[in-house]
Structure formats: structure tokens, C-alpha cells
């Protein structure tokens, strides 16, 4: 049963209240009388307790809004009715099931029997609908239908060659299982065409790269060179010619394709990080103890971006032909630099996660990206991307959009800078945030309002439940 939560009357002469902060978010469990939001009237800040135990089902009044007393600000799904609410807040299994079929094959790593490894490429150029990640989108069609899975090969009159190919060392099978990869679809270089550990790792690397894209600024300048005929070097010239790794090739293709597809514009904001750094400083010990991961500025950035994406749906969108595709889910890709390239694992349903949830997911994804343990689904389906060249000292970048998305946020280094505040000189930790956006869909005003929203979240430190 749903119970209304109302703006309480805080006094006889008081007709309205300003909701300053939600202490709970939709889907959170609340106990009766547990504070769920704060209001502010003149010089008084008050915590308002929940009228019932249950789950916060819906927030109807956002932070900063002023509403008359007795306005319904939220609804609690009371204990008796939690089953309904729980169903609503757990969309993951269905999405995962849908994503699974697309996960196994990838055009680049599995030369199909009929076609070459280029099958998917033409499709890649076209903007893809909805959440499908661009390079992967073409992949399942490249031959998935024709090639039976390994499991069905055995015991179904398969050839000796087929059986050999499926055979492989326990290590390889384990890796294949972890990454949900069909070994029969990897070209083996071992004995009798067996798939070796090197084969599968290389395949996975290329696989992962297909779904990645990030700022690689140097790549921005390469379209012309990519199109031009390769220079010819004579033996004896003082160069060393090395073939590109599969991942490198995929990154190069993806970057150039993005430049050709979107009308890139980059806008840069400077943000005072004093509050965020202070929140981090105050909470990092308790946070580490409770969650086992470090509290970095990254989850604050992700959270701030998610809040802005909720407000500006056109930034969480794609272009599909003449249509605009607004995505109902917010899946935030986080660019991770690797020694051998880069990859963009995706924080799925980032809008359902608390700050600590985001921190945990990001840490886990980054660690597994570096140990090559990401599954293909984990690098697919992003609706917006954040890249952080600041960790290397970059002040700001002009990142390339991760297709088929329409915007990417680049975070520069957080540095103490001397700034002027109310005509006085002050030292503040500052950061440049750069948003590259697709001007086909997003107007400059929208992009800048989006950035102003992020800025205000960070400057004012509007984060709840940090630990």
C-alpha cells in the first residue's frame, strides 16, 4: 500500500516549505520515523521523519523546490506492499538476459566461415538504435546464426576438426567461461588448430576494444592519415614497423568513425571542488572501512553527471537516422587507461546507485579491466561516457564522443589554484570539466546548462549518504 509523505506544517504562520535535501532515494528502505528529507524555513533546518516503514517508492518534489504545506512530496510503499516496489527497482535481470546473446561473438575476433572479419564494419558506421554499443551491434549478425555453439557440436555428428577446436587446455576453457566466449569461434594457432591461451587473450583484447572509445586526443587528428595510403618505408630506413594490435585497430576505427559521425563541440567549465574534497576528506576513512574501497573524486563526478543526465534527457540519447532516441536508463561508461590501450567499462543503471555503490562498481570494473576480466556485456550499452585524463595531469581535454552516444565528459586534474572570490584572493581546489557534445542533437545552451547543473552539484556538495 502506498502512503503519502507530505510537506509538514512547521508553524502557524508558515504556508510553504523548501525541500533542501533528500536523505533517501527511491528504492531505499526506510523505517518509521527515520528522517527521509530535510526542509528549510528561514533559519531553521528540519529533518522530516517517514510516516511509515517500507520502501521510498517515488519522489514527487525535487531538492530546491518550494511547495505549499500538505503537498505530497513522496510516496512510501509500506511494508505490506514491498513486493511490488521491489519488482520495480530491480530491472537488471531482464536487461542482462537480453544482452547475453550479443555477448558471445564479435566480428573482429571470430572470422566466420563464410565471410571475412570485416562483416560488421559497414553496419558500424550507421548510428545504431538505443542501447546497443556501436561496434558490437553489427557483430552477432556476422555469422552467429550459422555457427552452432560448441555444446551442440559435441554429440551431433560434428567433424573431428570441430571437436579439436573446441578442445583446449583447462586454463583456456576457464578464461572462455569467465568471459562468456565460445571457443569454437576463436581461431586456434596451437596443435591441430587448438585455441591457446595467447589466442584467447588476444581475441578478448580485440573484443573488448570493439566496445571502447575514449578521448585519445592524438587520434582526433588522424582521419586524413587513416584515409591516405600508408607510407612506404624502404628497408634500412630508421623506423620500426609494427602491426597494430586488434585493440589498437578497433580504437583507431572507432575514433575516426566518431569524428565523421558527430558534429563535435567542446565546452569547458571550471569548478570549485572545495566541498567535494572536504566531503571526501571527512568520509574517506569510514568509507574505506565500510565499503573496502577508496573514496576518490570519481564517484562524485559520476553522481553529479547522473543528476544532470536526469534533468537533460537529450544528453542521454542517440541519433538514429532522422529519429532521436531518448534512453530511459542511464549507463555511464568510465574510460580506463590500460598499458596496452584503453577500454570503457559501463556502470549500468548508475541512476539507481548510491555514491558508495558507484564507487564500488567503478573500482571493480577498473580492476577487472586491468586484469582483462571484463565480460563483453560490461563494455556495452553505455549511454554517456566520462574520461579522466586529469589523473595524468591534463588540465582539460577535448574528448571524442563514444558512438552512438552524444556527449562525453572529460575531467581534468584537480589542482589548488588562486582565484578571486568576492574581490578577495583565495586558494581553492579547482578542476576544469570539458564536455564534448554532438551539435547535431544538443544545442550549446543545453550543453552549458547541463554543465552548470554538474557544477552546482559539485560546488554545493549536494551529495547524500556518502558513507
Amino acid at each position, binding site marked *: 500500500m502506498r502512503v503519502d509523505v507530505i510537506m509538514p506544517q*512547521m*508553524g*502557524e*504562520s*508558515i504556508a510553504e516549505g523548501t525541500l*533542501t*535535501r533528500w536523505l533517501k532515494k527511491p528504492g531505499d528502505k526506510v523505517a518509521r*520515523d527515520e*528522517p527521509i528529507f*530535510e526542509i*528549510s*524555513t*528561514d*533559519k*531553521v*533546518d*528540519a*529533518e522530516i*521523519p517517514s510516516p511509515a516503514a517500507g520502501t521510498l517508492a517515488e519522489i514527487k518534489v525535487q531538492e530546491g523546490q518550494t511547495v505549499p504545506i500538505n503537498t505530497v512530496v513522496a510516496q512510501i510503499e509500506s511494508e505490506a506492499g514491498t513486493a511490488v516496489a521491489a519488482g520495480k527497482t530491480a530491472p537488471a535481470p531482464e536487461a542482462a538476459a537480453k544482452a547475453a546473446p550479443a555477448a558471445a561473438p564479435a566480428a573482429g575476433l571470430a572470422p566466420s566461415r563464410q565471410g571475412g572479419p570485416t562483416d560488421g564494419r559497414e553496419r558500424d558506421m550507421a548510428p545504431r538504435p538505443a542501447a546497443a554499443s556501436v561496434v558490437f551491434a553489427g557483430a552477432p549478425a556476422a555469422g552467429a546464426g550459422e555457427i552452432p555453439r560448441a555444446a551442440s557440436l559435441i554429440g551431433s555428428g560434428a567433424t573431428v576438426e570441430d571437436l579439436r577446436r573446441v578442445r583446449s587446455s583447462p586454463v583456456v576453457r576457464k578464461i572462455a567461461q569467465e568471459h562468456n566466449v565460445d571457443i569454437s569461434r576463436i581461431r586456434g594457432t596451437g596443435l591441430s588448430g587448438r585455441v591457446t591461451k595467447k589466442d584467447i587473450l588476444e581475441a578478448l583484447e580485440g573484443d573488448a576494444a570493439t566496445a571502447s572509445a575514449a578521448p585519445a586526443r592524438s587520434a582526433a587528428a588522424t582521419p586524413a592519415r587513416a584515409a591516405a595510403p600508408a607510407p612506404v618505408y624502404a628497408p634500412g630506413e630508421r623506423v620500426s614497423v609494427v602491426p597494430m594490435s586488434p585493440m589498437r585497430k578497433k580504437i583507431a576505427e572507432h575514433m575516426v568513425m566518431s569524428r565523421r559521425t558527430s558534429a563535435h563541440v567542446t565546452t569547458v567549465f571550471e569548478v*570549485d571542488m*572545495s*566541498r567535494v574534497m*572536504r566531503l571526501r576528506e571527512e568520509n574517506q576513512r569510514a568509507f574505506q572501512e565500510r565499503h573496502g574501497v577508496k573514496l576518490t573524486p570519481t564517484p562524485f563526478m559520476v553522481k553529479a553527471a547522473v543528476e544532470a543526465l536526469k534533468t537533460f534527457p537529450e544528453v542521454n540519447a542517440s541519433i538514429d537516422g532522422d529519429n532521436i532516441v531518448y534512453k530511459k536508463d542511464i549507463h555511464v561508461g568510465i574510460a580506463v587507461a590500460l598499458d596496452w590501450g584503453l577500454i570503457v567499462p559501463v556502470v549500468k543503471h548508475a541512476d539507481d546507485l548510491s555514491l558508495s555503490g558507484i564507487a564500488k562498481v567503478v573500482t571493480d570494473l577498473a580492476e577487472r579491466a586491468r586484469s582483462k576480466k571484463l565480460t563483453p556485456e560490461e563494455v556495452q550499452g553505455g549511454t554517456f561516457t566520462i574520461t579522466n585524463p586529469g589523473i595524468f595531469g591534463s588540465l582539460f581535454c577535448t574528448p571524442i564522443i563514444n558512438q552512438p552516444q552524444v556527449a562525453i565528459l572529460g575531467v581534468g586534474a584537480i589542482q589548488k589554484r588562486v582565484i578571486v*572570490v*568576492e574581490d*578577495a*584572493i*583565495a*586558494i*581553492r581546489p579547482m578542476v576544469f570539466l570539458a564536455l564534448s557534445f554532438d551539435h547535431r542533437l544538443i544545442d550549446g545552451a543545453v550543453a552549458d546548462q547541463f554543465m552548470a547543473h554538474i557544477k552546482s552539484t559539485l*560546488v*554545493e556538495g549536494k551529495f547524500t549518504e556518502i558513507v
Partner: protein
Amino acid sequence: MRRCVHAFLGRVGYDEATDLQNGCARALKTGLGEERLLLLEHDPVITLGRNARREDVLIAEETLRAQGVAVAVTDRGGQVTYHGPGQLVGYPILDLAPDRRDVARYLRDLEEALIRTLGHFDVAASRIAGLTGVWAGGGKIASIGVHLSRWVTTHGFALNVSTDLSRFRLIVPCGLKTRDVTSMQRLLGRTVPLEDVVAALVPEFAAVFGREMIEQNAAAAAPPRRTAAQEVA
């Protein structure tokens, strides 16, 4: 008549006082504690209320710390203010639920108790409509900022008795750029001991709020005294 235990705790660090207030409020909410009026003065600290803007702190935190001024973010209402030696800070931990579920009335009552207290020292103080606090001689002499949780109050008021007013130049007090800050010392041309102000305030507070005030042995409620070294720091 309801009892309210009061104590003058002397100089207390801001974080210690916050813990003390929260402890008292928690005890009151769970029925284990009594209503209290905590009176004290703080080490120099700039506090940011819920509606504070960081820009209203005009000097970098590093510089402030070097000058011995801490910065604290709090859950009281209001904006930025300064607390320090010579300022009488009052934190009433009261349960408003039984007889006055009205935040505006609570603010006016706090102002009333302070205005009457100032009357004991021949300081003519008054309210300005729309600007919560107590005003005298064209300046703000007392600031108010309150936090409520289930109608139990924390935070409260800060009355400038002999506060070093130059410290307010570090901030835009309460976000009011054009208003001056004043103190009893500035208006009277003499220093009034905080203890004298406490002695005048307690009965006025009792009258306005309808409480029987019981003095608690300050030592029992006070946190451990700070060492001389901490005082200097």
C-alpha cells in the same frame, strides 16, 4: 512546570560541542534525557549552515587555519557565521512537540529571550522583520540558526558580548553584505563578563519558554578541559 537543565561550559571546541548537542538531543528523543540549555563560548570557527554559500567565506581555508580559525559545515539552518571568544553561544536542546510545534514561534521566542537579556544591560535591541536575529544600534548583535529533528532542537543562538568583530570580515555574515555586526562591548564601551550575561539570560529564557531552570554542576556536563597548548592553537 517542565525542567530544563542549564550549564555554562566555558570554552568548548566546535566539534566537541556538536557531539555534546547531538548526544543530548538523542537522549531527549529516546526519553532518556532532559531538556537542556548549553551555554558556552567557542574557539574561533567559521560555520556554514545549510543555506551557506562557500563564496561567503572570503579567505582560503588554509589561510584561516593558519590564523587559528577553523571551518565547519553544520546542519543548522542559515548561512555563514563566525563564533569565537567573547561570544555567548546558547544551544537549547528542547522538545517543541508538546506545546509549540511552530518553528517561527521558536525563532521569535529565542529573539525575545535575547532582547530581554540585553535590556538588563541597557542595550535597546529589537527585531527586523524578515531578518531573523537580534539587532541593536544598527547592527546585528545576535545570530540564530536552528536544526530540528522530530521537533527536538539543536544549535541555537550566538550573542556578541565582546567578540572580536574584525573576524566577521572573514565572511559575509548570514549572506548579508550590507549589514553591520555589533557587540555589547561596542555599544556599551565596556567589557561585560560572559558569566554576567548568563546570569541575566537564564531567568529570561525560563520566562519566555515556561521552563523551570535547574543549574547543573558545570563540571559534570563539560567535556574535558583543553590544555593551554590547545587554547593557543
